[in-house]
Structure formats: C-alpha cells, structure tokens
C-alpha cells in the first residue's frame, strides 16, 4: 500500500500543463504505433468498439490511476510508462485476435520484457512485402524520397540518416512526413491487397 500511495501521490503531483504535454505526445505515439496495424486490420474500431487511439490513450491512463499498472516513477517518465502500458495492451490485443481467446489477461510488464520481441513485432511476410511495395510506389517520382527509402533500410534513427544521406535532419523530417502521408494513403486505398 505504501508504494501504491506513493504512486498516487506522484500522479496527483503532475500539473495540468504537464498532463496536456504527455497526452499530446502519447496520442501521436499511439497513432503511429497503431498506424501499420490498423491498416493491416488488427486494431480496427470494430475490434475495440471505438476510435483505437482514443481507446488506448484512455485505457492506459486509467490503468495507471487504478494501479492495475504501477508507475515505476524512479525508472520511467510518465510518458515512457504510458507508452509501455500501450505496448502491452497492443500485444495483448494482437494475441487475443490471433488466438481468439476471450479471457486473455493483460500481460505483466516482467513477462512482456522477457517475451521474445518477435512475438510482439512480427507481421506476416506478405504484409511486409505490401509495405515494401508501398515505399517503392510512393517514392518513384521523387529522388529525395528514393534516397530516404534506401536510408530507411540501412539506418535506425534520423541521426544515422543524416550521416548516410547528407540531408539535414529538418529535411528528413519533411521527407518522413511526406512519405507517411503517401504510404498511409496508398495502403488505405489498396486495402484489398491486405487479406
């Protein structure tokens, strides 16, 4: 109980301005975390009974206040902890959908950490091929985007891409945004490709 009390005190000490910033960043995080998956059907509104982003943001915050998930405030910032809760929920829902079990329990964090990452992040090869085609199709009329796609294959961060392409980070942000819009539109309009 002492730990629970401390967690609640920490949650209550977060100011409205800080909460707004955290919710804003969490919303964008969930949006993009789900983007690929909503496009491939795992987190549709039908499955969750509402807007998936809204659902995950509300649920994650609620789970921290109800202490179903304990904020490890010495280890993680509030945003990081909420992102972990969302990650767990997404994994759980993917599993639920795959196994079609109704009573699957939300994964404990320890279990989530020890879980092989491939269990969480796998897509079917077919989906990956569709995604690769989307990148190719959406960059074919733009040399900068083609370069960006090559860098995406080789690099894991914008900093690495800066070195690989010689572009400024600001320019890479612009290319990333352009590509995100194009790829999501492409996948949405070609949903028939995704079984």
């Amino acid at each position, binding site marked *: *109980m002492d730990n629970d*009390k401390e967690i*609640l*005190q920490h*949650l*209550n000490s977060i100011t*409205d301005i800080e*909460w*707004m910033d955290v*919710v*804003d*960043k969490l*919303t*964008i*995080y969930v*949006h*993009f*975390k789900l*983007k*690929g998956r909503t496009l491939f059907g795992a987190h549709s509104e039908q499955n969750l009974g509402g*807007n998936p*982003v809204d659902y995950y*943001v*509300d649920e994650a*915050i*609620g789970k921290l*206040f109800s202490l179903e998930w304990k904020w490890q405030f010495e280890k993680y910032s509030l945003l990081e902890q909420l992102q972990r809760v969302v990650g767990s929920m997404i994994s759980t829902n993917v599993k639920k959908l795959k196994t079609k079990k109704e009573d699957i329990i939300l994964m404990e964090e320890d279990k989530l950490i020890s879980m092989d*990452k*491939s269990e969480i*992040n*796998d*897509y*079917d*090869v077919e*989906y*990956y091929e569709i*995604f*690769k085609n989307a*990148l190719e199709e959406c960059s074919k009329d733009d040399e900068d985007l083609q370069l960006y796609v090559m860098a*995406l*294959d080789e690099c*894991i*961060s*914008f900093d690495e891409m800066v070195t690989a392409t010689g572009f400024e980070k600001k320019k*890479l*942000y*612009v290319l*990333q*945004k352009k*590509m*995100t819009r194009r*790829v999501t539109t492409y996948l949405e309009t070609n949903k028939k490709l995704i079984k």
Partner: protein
Amino acid sequence: MKIKANNIDKFFELSNEAFESDNESVYNDLGFSKDEYLDNKLKMIKRLKLKSKAQLNKAKNENLLEIALHKVQNILESANETVKEELEKLILTRSPQFQFRNIEKLEEEDLKELLSDLGVIDIIEDLEKLENGN
C-alpha cells in the same frame, strides 16, 4: 512464415518523431479538434485525480483510526484507573450520548466507530497528552 517487422515499426516510430513538433495534421487525420480532444482528456484526468485523492484520504483516515484505537486499547489494558477515568471524561465531553455506555465493554468495531465520530486527529492529540500525563 513470420518476419520481424523492424522496418514497418521503425518507419512509424520515425513518423512519430517527425510529427512530434508539428502534430496538428495528425489530429486532423484522427478527425479530432486538438484543443477539444486535450480538454476532454484533461477533464477525464481530473476525475481520476479526484477519485485517487479520495482513495488516499480513506487510507490516511484508516491509518489514523488504527493509531487512535491502539492508544485507547493501551489505556484500557493498563492498570492506571486515573488515566482510564480521564479517557472516559475526554470521550464524554466530545460525545455526551456516550454516558450510558461502558467503554471497556465495547467491541473493537464499536470503538473504531466511536473514535471516527469524535474526530480522529483531535482525539489522538488528547490521547497523547493523557499518555504523557498531561
């Protein structure tokens, strides 16, 4: 056959970073007004804060009640009749309806109820004075 979706996840993680400082268009994609959305979320958080504060206060009161109960039980179990009389007087001044009841015969739950009626923080201070011989 499954493959690791590094590139798919990486792509959307990079999108997250690129849109972070300029995210109005993401809210447009979601079909939300950013201000309205954040305002609604803040209202929800305020409700959750309120509930958790009530939970914290409840736990705090229960804790104080246990302390007061422990002090009363110590006095009742002691052989010091003067302190026992002082305790009865203390309770009587705060709760006149108590005059027809014998504190030593009260069950633990009744004692707790009585103490919570008396205002637990004040009674702890008075009990401490009694323990310390005023």
